[in-house]
């Protein structure tokens, strides 16, 4: 348990992705089987204990500790599991410290009553607070140390000196504790078979296109428009829908199975093959904005009411496997032809085709992108370009596929708070919360925060921003500073963003997608920044256009 506990502890304090990768790789290289396999499973969310609940922790604490000392401690620490981990009067002589595989094995088979006993026994046997903390995290399943499944796979790739697609290729045929996977990565055996029905196929991604269409520069000059097909880039989440030999899966583009949250979509996978498409909310046959899909994401399940209110479906882009036959090597032109007849023959309203947009040259396509026709294209993110002759290959190769996103929306906002950054940005105030004007109950214009951005500026600009923050701090809260921002003084940031969503979690009622600093308006008076009404109208307009 010790090494795993240390790993969790370090990951929790390490913000940078690359540093997390090194920690993971080093742990996986050093830990024995099957411990590292179980560790990997718990980090990637493949491990859940139905019988373990946070209530056990409280109960254990109440039975063992003076309530007043416990209350004082909890009040100071502020986290139940951490308080118990720190305060627990361990008596290591009561037994040997449990190893991770033993903990996993016993928890998997234990009844609720047994879990309570096991928990107290393990807390007694683990001598250090970090170990007890890790045990409690593992038990309740909320590791929250900032490791995605993708990152864990990246670490495996690093460990084995292979590409992440190689990991993804075999990942879904592997089960914890992944002994075959590690044996392969360490060169002790061959690559494990990936030929499991329902497995994930690593996804092909697009590069952002470079240059201007008219007159053509960059990629537009480099490539011939006639070689490419164009379609809309729909604004949902990219999915791979698999239905093979009775196994149905709905994978996100990183290979996470999102099927449990979309039973309505899974029920519609009444075919034999693998589709690549966009997961969207459909109403009356029309795609809804991303905000609607958001209502169904990051949930473990979906109830009937939610599914009726936000019915989901797939808009198909590509066909990878057709009735047992892998057609990824075929050119896009041929796959498209098969896709059309495949989807048409399904006759299922939850699965439709992403239509191709005919065009003569880049200039014409640019017009289409600038002024999308009424209906669904209004809520598209932009265009996708696919070479007619391109096979379906994993990763993000340059040339065969391009994305050409719509120009972002812009808003002039006022800097309100700044937080210090990490790593290379240590010591710089580099994370900025910005707001727009809103009329309060008295009719006065006050700033209300609408988003947070931490990139989009050069190093030179960062230095200047940092200085501005330091010179104009009005209040401090830990690592955060409030800067002066009122009608007469403030720094205006031109913020670019991809879209808006309604959000009850934000005071302004609005959440921005992908905000970043587009320009710093040192010249613009704060009072001339935008008002919340403008953003609200944009949101209303999106609802109307697509509705």
């Amino acid at each position, binding site marked *: 348990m010790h090494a795993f506990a240390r790993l969790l502890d370090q990951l929790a304090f390490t913000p940078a992705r690359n540093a997390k990768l090194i920690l993971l790789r080093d742990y996986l290289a050093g830990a024995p089987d099957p411990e590292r396999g179980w560790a990997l499973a718990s980090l990637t969310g493949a491990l859940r204990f139905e019988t373990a609940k946070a209530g056990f922790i409280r109960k254990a604490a109440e039975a063992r*500790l003076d309530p007043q*000392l416990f209350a004082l401690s909890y009040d100071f*620490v502020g*986290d139940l599991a951490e308080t118990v981990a720190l305060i627990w009067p361990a008596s290591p002589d009561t037994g040997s410290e449990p190893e991770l595989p033993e903990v996993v094995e016993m928890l998997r088979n234990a009844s609720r009553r047994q879990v309570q006993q096991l928990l107290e026994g393990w807390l007694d046997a683990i001598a*250090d607070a970090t170990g007890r903390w890790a045990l409690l995290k593992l038990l309740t399943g909320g590791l929250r140390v900032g490791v995605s499944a993708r990152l864990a796979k990246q670490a495996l790739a690093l460990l084995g000196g292979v590409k992440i697609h190689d990991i993804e290729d075999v990942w879904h045929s592997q089960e914890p504790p992944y002994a075959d996977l590690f044996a392969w990565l360490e060169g002790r055996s061959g690559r494990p078979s990936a030929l499991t029905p329902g497995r994930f196929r690593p996804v092909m991604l697009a590069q952002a296109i470079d240059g201007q269409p008219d007159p053509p520069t960059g990629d537009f000059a480099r490539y011939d428009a006639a070689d490419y097909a164009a379609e809309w880039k729909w604004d949902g989440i990219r999915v791979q829908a698999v239905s093979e030999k009775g196994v149905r899966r709905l994978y996100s583009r990183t290979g996470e199975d999102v099927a449990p949250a979309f039973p309505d979509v899974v029920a519609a996978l009444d075919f034999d093959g693998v589709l690549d498409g966009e997961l969207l909310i459909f109403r009356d046959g029309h795609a809804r904005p991303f905000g609607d899909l958001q209502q169904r994401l990051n949930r473990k399940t979906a109830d009937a009411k939610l599914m009726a209110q936000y019915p989901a479906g797939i808009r198909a882009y590509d066909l990878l496997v057709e009735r047992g036959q892998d057609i990824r090597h075929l050119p896009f032109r041929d796959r498209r032809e098969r896709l059309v007849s495949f989807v048409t023959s399904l006759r299922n309203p939850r699965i439709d085709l992403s239509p191709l947009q005919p065009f003569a040259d880049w200039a014409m396509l640019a017009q289409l992108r600038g002024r999308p026709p009424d209906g669904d294209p209004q809520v598209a993110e932009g265009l996708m370009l696919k070479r007619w002759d391109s096979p379906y290959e994993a990763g993000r190769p340059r040339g065969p596929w391009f994305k050409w996103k719509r120009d972002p929306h812009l808003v002039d906002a006022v800097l309100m708070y700044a937080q210090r950054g990490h790593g290379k940005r240590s010591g710089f105030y580099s994370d900025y919360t910005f707001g727009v004007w809103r009329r309060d109950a008295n009719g006065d214009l006050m700033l209300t925060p609408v988003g947070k951005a931490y990139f989009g500026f050069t190093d030179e600009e960062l230095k200047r921003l940092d200085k501005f923050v330091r010179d104009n701090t009005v209040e401090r809260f830990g690592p955060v500073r409030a800067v002066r921002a009122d009608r007469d003084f403030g720094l205006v940031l031109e913020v670019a963003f991809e879209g808006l969503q309604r959000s009850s979690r934000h005071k302004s009622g609005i959440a921005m997608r992908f905000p970043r600093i587009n320009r710093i308006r040192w010249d613009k008076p704060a009072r001339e920044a935008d008002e919340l009404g403008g953003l609200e109208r944009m949101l209303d307009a999106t609802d109307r256009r697509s509705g």
Partner: protein
Amino acid sequence: MPSFDSLLRRTAEGLYCPAGDFHVDPVRPVARAVITHGHADHARSGHGSVLATAPTLAIMQARYGESFAGVTEAVSYGQAVSRNGVRVTLAPAGHVLGSAQVVLSWNGMTIVVSGDYKRRRDPTCPPFVPVPCDVFVTEATFGLPVFRFPDAADETARLLKSVGQFPGRTHLVGVYALGKAQRLIRLLRQAGYGDTLYMHGAIAAMNAVYQAQGVPLGPLAPATESGGDRLPGRIVLAPPSAIADKWARRFADPLPAFASGWMQVRARARQRQVELPLVLSDHADWNELTDTLTELKPQEVWITHGDEDGLLRWATLNGLAARALEISGYGDEDD
């Protein structure tokens, strides 16, 4: 027999000995002071006379200059002096170099003012010596059972492991300039780390005092005069306020660490944006506090500062008479 407060009581200036007419660690300038140790919240300048150990006087002089007090008197541990019939001796407190407990004996009663102390081995100062007493005046900086510190060697090992894992990053360790810095340096040396350690200016001054008092620290260099080298893979010691601020920018992808007892609590580490929290304290943790009280079994326990509620509750549960003195002004420097 006179009551305990004829020998020691709390006044606006801090602890005062009426029988001997002097203060212990006064928070404002007074005529006569006995100083337990050199941390700024206990050792202030401007007193008429100061009695302390020689290292404590050296630290005060380095901090405040030659004329930090009217008269100074250096005493060694165990050497008794008399003040109006009150016998005053200093005993090692194990907190930092020169740190002492003040033992006051008068009319058959003994009160020990422990100042700040710890019970763990510290390679930069002699260990705490328990002195039997009627009243034990204790700190309670970490007076909650959540504070039970790990072995210092484990924490040092974690730092060195991280240096090995991230050779491209400067490990920037926040430490208090007096005590913690030198202890960490000695711990690193004991762990076999022989490379040059790099110092913020505020720490270099205190290192010089320790070295002059005979504490070997190995090769040290100023962190800011490295000729444009951004010190990747090196360990830099700096005051806590510097590790996440402007000063840190000169280093290679700095990895902020902080050596403090407060690092036991995750939220404290996150607030300071620390990536490597090292739980290393010069104060007694919960076990050391309660073990000391159990060992000494004084008639009364007086708590000067810190988290007194926790320790008061423990005393109640264990049948010890205890009260909080609530002295304000302590704990400012080394929290």
